[in-house]
C-alpha cells in the first residue's frame, strides 16, 4: 500500500503539489489524471524518490520512505521515453536490475525468461533498443521494471509516444499484465480515456490539488467539481441558484416556469453549478411530465451528424447552451435546427457542484463519442 499524507512540493515560488493525501491499495490500477502542470508527474517522481518533498510523508507498505534513496525503494518506474539503455540488448536491459541485486543466476534466468514471455518479446532478446518499434521498446521498459518484482510500478505517461492504434492495444495489454502479475500500478496520464479504460480508481488533479478520487464510473456519472465534470468527457454546466433543498435533492428554476432537480454532490454552501451529461438528456417536441426529474425549454440552433449519434446544441431561454447527444436509432425526438423543444432528464443524472473558478477551456474538445464515427 502507498500512502501519501499532506504531501507538498514547491519549486521556488510555485507550488507543484499542494498538500495532497492519497491511499493506493495493493494490486490496484491507480491513475493520476490531469492537464499538464497539474502536479501528477511530480507526485509520481516523489513516490519513486527522484524528487524530495517540501513537506509531508510517503509510506510504502507502512514504512516511511520519505527520505529513502530511490534505489532502496521497492518501486520501479517506467519512463515516458522508456529510458532503455541503448548499448545493451533487450535481454541485458531486462537483466540489469537483477545483476545489480546479484540475484542467483538460475533464479535470475528463470525470472527474465518469464518476463520476456509475459511481454511477448521472445526472439528479440539479442536486439538493441534502436532495432525495435515503439511498442516493443515500451514492452522492454515494462519487462525491465517488472522483473524486479516491485511492490508498485510507477508509469509516467508510458503510451504518450505511440500512435493511436498502438496505444489502444497497449492499454489492453498493460491492463492484462497488471492483472496477471497483481502488481500495484500507479499510472500518470493526461488522457482521460486512457485513465477511464484501465484504472480501478482515478485521482483527477488540477493545479497541484486532488479534485476527486473515484472509480471511473463514479467520476463520469457523479463528478464532484466543475473541473472534473469538464475534464472528463463532455459535460453541460449550468449556473443556477438553488431555490429549495429537499433532502439531498436541490430544486432550481430558469425563470421560465420549468424546473431543474438534481442530487447534491460535494459542498452545499458553494453549490452554484449543475452538471448533466449530453447523452442523459431526452428531447421532446412538446411539454412532458418529467416525474421527479428536470424539464427545460429551448431551441435547437445546431445539429451535427456524428454517425452513431447526432449532437444538438440547444439554446435555453436564459441564453445558455446545452449539448445533447441523441442516438441515431429512429427513436429520438425532433432534431432540425430552429425547432422549439423540451429537454428532460432524471434527477439522478444531474448534480449540483461547486461553482469554482472556470476550468481550463475544454468546451472546444470533441464530444466523447466522436471517435465512433
Amino acid at each position: 500500500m502507498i500512502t501519501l499524507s499532506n504531501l507538498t512540493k514547491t519549486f521556488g515560488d510555485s507550488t507543484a503539489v499542494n498538500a495532497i493525501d492519497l491511499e493506493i491499495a495493493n494490486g490496484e490500477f491507480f491513475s493520476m489524471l490531469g492537464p499538464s502542470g497539474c502536479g501528477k508527474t511530480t507526485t509520481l517522481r516523489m513516490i519513486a524518490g527522484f524528487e524530495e518533498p517540501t513537506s509531508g510523508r510517503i509510506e510504502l507498505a507502512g514504512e516511511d520512505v520519505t527520505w529513502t534513496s530511490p534505489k532502496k525503494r521497492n518501486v520501479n518506474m517506467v519512463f515516458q521515453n522508456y529510458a532503455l539503455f541503448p548499448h545493451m540488448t533487450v535481454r541485458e536491459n531486462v537483466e540489469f536490475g537483477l545483476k545489480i541485486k546479484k540475484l542467483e543466476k538460475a533464479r535470475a534466468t528463470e525470472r527474465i525468461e518469464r518476463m520476456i514471455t509475459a511481454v511477448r518479446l521472445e526472439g528479440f532478446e539479442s536486439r538493441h533498443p534502436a532495432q525495435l518499434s515503439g511498442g516493443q521498446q515500451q514492452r522492454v521498459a515494462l519487462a525491465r521494471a517488472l522483473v524486479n518484482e516491485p511492490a508498485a510500478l510507477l508509469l509516467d505517461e508510458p503510451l504518450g509516444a505511440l500512435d493511436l492504434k498502438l496505444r489502444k492495444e497497449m492499454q489492453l495489454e498493460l491492463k492484462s499484465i497488471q492483472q496477471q502479475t497483481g502488481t500495484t500500478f500507479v499510472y500518470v496520464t493526461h488522457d482521460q480515456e486512457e485513465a477511464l479504460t484501465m484504472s480501478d480508481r482515478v485521482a483527477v488533479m488540477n493545479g497541484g490539488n486532488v479534485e476527486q478520487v473515484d472509480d471511473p464510473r463514479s467520476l463520469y456519472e457523479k463528478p464532484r467539481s466543475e473541473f472534473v465534470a469538464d475534464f472528463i468527457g463532455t459535460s453541460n454546466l449550468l449556473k443556477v441558484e438553488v431555490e429549495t433543498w429537499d433532502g439531498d435533492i436541490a430544486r432550481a428554476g430558469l425563470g421560465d416556469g420549468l424546473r431543474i432537480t438534481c442530487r447534491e454532490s460535494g459542498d452545499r454552501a458553494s453549490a452554484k453549478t449543475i452538471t448533466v451529461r449530453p447523452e442523459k438528456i431526452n428531447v421532446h417536441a412538446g411539454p412532458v411530465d418529467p416525474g421527479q426529474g428536470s424539464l427545460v425549454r429551448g431551441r435547437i440552433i445546431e445539429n451535427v451528424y456524428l454517425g452513431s449519434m447526432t449532437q444538438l446544441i440547444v439554446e435555453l431561454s436564459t441564453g445558455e447552451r446545452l449539448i445533447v447527444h441523441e442516438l441515431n436509432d429512429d427513436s429520438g425526438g425532433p432534431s432540425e435546427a430552429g425547432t422549439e423543444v423540451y429537454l428532460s432528464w432524471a434527477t439522478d443524472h444531474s448534480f449540483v457542484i461547486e461553482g469554482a473558478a472556470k476550468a481550463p477551456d475544454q468546451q472546444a474538445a470533441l464530444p466523447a463519442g466522436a471517435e465512433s464515427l
Partner: protein
Amino acid sequence: MPLSRRIQRALPNALSIGLTGLVMVILFGPVLLLALFSFNDSTVISLPWEGFTTRWYSEALNDDGAMTAIGNSVMVASIVTVASLILGTLASWGLTRIPFRGRPLVAGVHGSVLVVPWLIIGVAGLIFFSQIEMALSLQTIILMHIVVTFPLVVAVVSAGLIRFDPSLEEAAIDMGASQLQMMRYIVLPQIAPSLAAAAIFAFAWSFNNFEISFFTGGFEQTFPVWVYGVLRHSSNLPVVNAASTVIALAQVLLVFGLWYGMKLMTRRRGGSDHDAAEMITGAVR
C-alpha cells in the same frame, strides 16, 4: 532534352566536384608534395626528380635527435591525454550534472582558454615557471599542455553528456544501481565515443604543439621543437621530411582506426553510419 537544359542540369554537379577538388588540393597538396619529395634523391625540395630513394628514411631512423624527440613527444602526449581525460571528464560531470552557483561563469572560463593563442599561453607559462623558479623540462611542457587540452576535453565530453538522456541515469538508480555502478555500466559506455574523440584531439594537440613546448621546454625537445631546431640547416630538410611523413601517416591511421571502431560499435547497437558521424561531429561541436 535540349542541350541548354542538359548543361543547366550538369552545371551544379560539375561545379561542386570542381570546388571539392580545389579544397582537397589546398588541404592535402602541400603535405602530399612533402611526402613525395621525401623519396627524392636530392637535398633540395624541388624538381628535377633525381631518382627514388629510401635513404632519408634510414637516416631519420638512425638520427638519435629525431628518435629521442619523437619518444619525448609520444610520452608527453600520452601523459597529457590521460591526465586531461580524467580531469576533463570529472569537470564535465560537474558542469553538466551538478547545479552550483556560478556554473555558467565556470563553464565560460573553461571555454575561453580555447581561444587564447598558444603562443601567449607558452609565454605566460615561461614567465610563470621562472617566477616560481621551476626548472624547464618535459614536466613543465606536460603541465602547460594540460592547460590547453583540459578545456578541450571538457568541451567535447560535456557535449556528449548534454546529449545523453539523464532519465537513463534515473532508470539505473531506479533499478538499484549505486552512483558508481551507474557510471560504470550506463554513463561510461554511452559517452565512450566522446571520450575517444576527446582522447584523439588531446593527443594530437599535445603531440603537434610547437609554441608551448618551445617556450616551456628545457634541454629535452619534443618532435616539433626538434624539427624547428634542425631546419636551420637546409641539408637536414630531407630527413625532417621523411620523419614528418611517418608521423603524419601514423596519426592519420590512428584516427581512421578509431573512426572505424566507432562505426562498428554503433552498427552493432543497431545504429546507422549517420549515428556514428553524429557522435563524432556532435562531440566536436
